[in-house]
C-alpha cells in the first residue's frame, strides 16, 4: 500500500518533466529533419549537433557541386521514388534546392553520379540523426 502510494507520488512529481519531454520528442526530430543537427542543438548537445550539421550539409553541398541529381516526387519510376525518399530526408536543404532548381541537369560523367549518391545519403543520414534526436528527447539515449 505504502509502496503504491510512493509510486503515485513519484509519478505526480515526474509529470511536468515528462510533459516537457513529450513536447521535445515531437519538436527535436522535426527541427532535426528541417535543419540537420538542429534536433541535437535544441537539446544542448552542441558538439554532436554541430558535427552532424557540418557532415550532412557538407555532403549535400558537395553532391550538388558535383552536379548530382535532385529527385522530384512525381516522376513515377520506382528507383526515382526511392531516390526522392532519400533526398527528402535532407529536409530544408532539399526544399531550398528544389526552390532554387538545383540538381536538375543531366548526369554526364561518373562524378555527377557520385554527387547524386552523396545527396541521397546525406538525406538518409539526416533521417538517422533525427531519430537519434528523438531517442535523446525520450531519454532512451543521453
Amino acid at each position, binding site marked *: 500500500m505504502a509502496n503504491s502510494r510512493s509510486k503515485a507520488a513519484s509519478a505526480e512529481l515526474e509529470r511536468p518533466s515528462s510533459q516537457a519531454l513529450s513536447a521535445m520528442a515531437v519538436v527535436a526530430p522535426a527541427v532535426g529533419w528541417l535543419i540537420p543537427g538542429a534536433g541535437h542543438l535544441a537539446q544542448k548537445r552542441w558538439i*554532436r549537433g554541430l*558535427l*552532424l550539421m557540418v*557532415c*550532412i550539409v*557538407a*555532403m549535400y553541398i*558537395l553532391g550538388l*557541386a*558535383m*552536379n548530382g541529381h535532385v529527385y522530384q516526387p512525381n516522376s513515377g519510376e520506382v528507383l526515382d521514388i526511392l531516390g526522392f525518399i532519400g533526398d527528402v530526408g535532407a529536409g530544408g536543404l532539399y526544399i531550398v534546392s528544389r526552390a532554387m532548381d538545383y540538381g536538375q*541537369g543531366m548526369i554526364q*560523367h*561518373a*562524378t*555527377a553520379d*557520385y*554527387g547524386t*549518391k*552523396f545527396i541521397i*545519403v*546525406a538525406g538518409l*543520414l539526416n533521417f*538517422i*540523426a533525427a*531519430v*537519434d534526436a528523438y531517442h535523446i528527447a525520450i531519454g532512451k*539515449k*543521453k
Partner: protein
Amino acid sequence: MTGLALSHFTAALLFAVFASVVFGITQREGMRDQVRYGAYCFAMFIGGVIAAGWVMWLVRH
C-alpha cells in the same frame, strides 16, 4: 557546367568521413565509444573500397 570533379578515391574518402562521423554519433553512447565506432566504420569503408578495387583488378586481369 562541369561541376566539382573529384577522383574516385577522394569521393570515397569524403563519403567515408561524413558517414562515419554520423554513424559514430548516432549509433553509440559516450564519447569514447562514439569515436571508436566512427573509426571502425571509417576503416571498414576504406578497407571495403581498397578490397573492391583489388577484386576489380583481379577480374580485369
